[in-house]
């Protein structure tokens, strides 16, 4: 999926963070962060729409994920395999993965309608493993499809643009 977002980098947010639809989006982003820190991958995957994508691009400006090399570009099939990999106990890196804690904040509503909320945010993740803290920082874009109730809200697109996406990052045993 290669959806192009309008470039809103210079806009001031037109919608308040207290708009109930925006609040639902923020709550979902935080729920996802909590599940990932707790490595609850099955529950994490359930937050995604069947047609949803989870992406960590290398090129920080690209929206054409199809035609570029990404660190992660997961559709439903790849996410399902990823959950198996993370939970089955055969992957050396996942079995012994770092403990993580992430802060997602600085939310900016980009598009808000009754059907969909698009948010920008900042994420700082600290990963600790064997005496070492690694820092993963980046901008995150969430496109969230609003359901009939908050429990039915789903992520259609999550893009994590790391500040160092074009440099050498550690090989990771967790998801961002």
């Amino acid at each position, binding site marked *: 999926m290669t959806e192009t977002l309008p470039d809103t980098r210079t806009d001031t947010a037109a919608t308040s963070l207290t708009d109930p639809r925006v609040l639902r989006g923020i709550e979902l982003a935080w729920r996802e962060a909590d599940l990932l820190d707790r490595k609850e991958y099955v529950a994490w995957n359930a937050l995604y729409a069947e047609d949803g994508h989870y992406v960590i691009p290398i090129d920080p400006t690209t929206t054409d994920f199809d035609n570029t090399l*990404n*660190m992660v570009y997961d559709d439903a099939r790849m996410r399902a395999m990823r959950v*198996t990999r993370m939970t089955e106990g*055969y992957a050396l890196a996942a079995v012994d993965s770092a403990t993580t804690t992430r802060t997602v904040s600085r939310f900016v509503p980009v598009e808000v309608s009754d059907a969909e909320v698009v948010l920008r945010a900042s994420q700082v993740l600290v990963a600790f493993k064997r005496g070492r803290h690694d820092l993963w920082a980046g901008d995150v874009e969430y496109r969230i499809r609003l359901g009939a109730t908050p429990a039915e809200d789903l992520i259609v697109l999550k893009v994590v643009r790391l500040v160092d996406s074009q440099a050498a990052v550690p*090989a990771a045993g967790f998801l961002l």
Partner: protein
Amino acid sequence: MTTEITAANVYDLAAADLVQGDRVAGRMYTDPEIFEQEMTRIFEHTWIWVAHESELPKPGSFKSTYVGRQPVIVSRDRKGAIHTLVNRCRHRGASLCEKRTGEANGFTCPYHAWSYSLDGKLRGIPYPEGYEGVLDKSELSLKRLRTESYGGMVFATLDEDIEPLEEFLGDVKVWIDRFMKQGGGYPVKVLGTHQFTFGGNWKIQLENTTDGYHFPIVHRSWMASVDAETADMMSFMTDPEAITHDLGNGHSVMQMVPEHSDLDADDGTEKLQDRFDGLIADLRAAGLSDSAIRKVVLAMHGTGFNLNLFPNVSMSAAFFRVLRPISVDKTVIEHVAIGPDGPDEVVGPVNRARLRVHEHFQGPFGFGTPDDAEGWDRVQRGAQGAPEMPILVNRGAAREKPSPEGWPTSHVTDETGMRAAYAQWKQMMSDD
């Protein structure tokens, strides 16, 4: 004459004595002094891979990278010649280029604006009055490294006197030719690069590319995630045809899927994998013949062998793996994805599929790389213990035989490739 490695002598032995044929001392991974020696004796005195020609598609294209720890710029000049220039201004030493890739007319230093042409010649100095009588521009070109290429692979060396690249590659050349057949009749181009670090010595990675023994164990999670046909293709552990050759000069090749070693040798009987049905339909719609489709689809996972070139590049499956030593216990790895370069209606769908195959295994969040990196990290940590106990690279030493070509050959799970690399290391680290 080699001295046995003991607890009493392990820290006193000369570097070359740390390699004893089929066993090596763990100190090779942990001693900062040995690392310093390697950077000069090996990385400044042999051919180091710096680029694939497709990364420099036109005059003015450049790529910044490293030879050992020295930053270099690889550039293509107006006449098409490729140069490797030390990325250091001749004035007071500032780096000229901090962009990884791009296009330029030349390089202008950001500090006092001395400017250099694409081949490194000093072209201009602002306010030149102060230099009258003290400076001859023709003597202040950027330091230029010998640069030679074979089969699109560009190598550079800081040593003016070593053998030509083709001599150094020797029997590797036929394997490079075979590797490039995965273009399916088109030339091969770089599609993108993953970069990641691991907290271990560069030689731990060097060992890995022709280590068939680790594959089903470390990559069990990847094997579980691919379809049965791919998994079957990778089940080479008990296949006697799957072998590793020592190609000389530290180079080796591991044939996991021997029937894919020469992609032109397709007899048409192998079934194309079901997972590529969509791709096959796209290619048929683009007007490709059935035999042309077979060519590109059989090459989706690359060739059936891993070619390991001493000391810093290997050609594996559908990518190049490049290592860059940072310090004794830190290494950067690049996984460079490649695919065919041809008309858009063909290479578009093929390369989109190849990018996904690459992301699945090779990226820093792939299903293969993090597990390899975890293994390598542990070797570095473990090697601190019991320094007198050697690291073993003796698997298959007793069943190694020369191939018809004369290459020492053993089973794909054997450590022939590591012994080849360490013999070269020993020779380069020796005083005589």
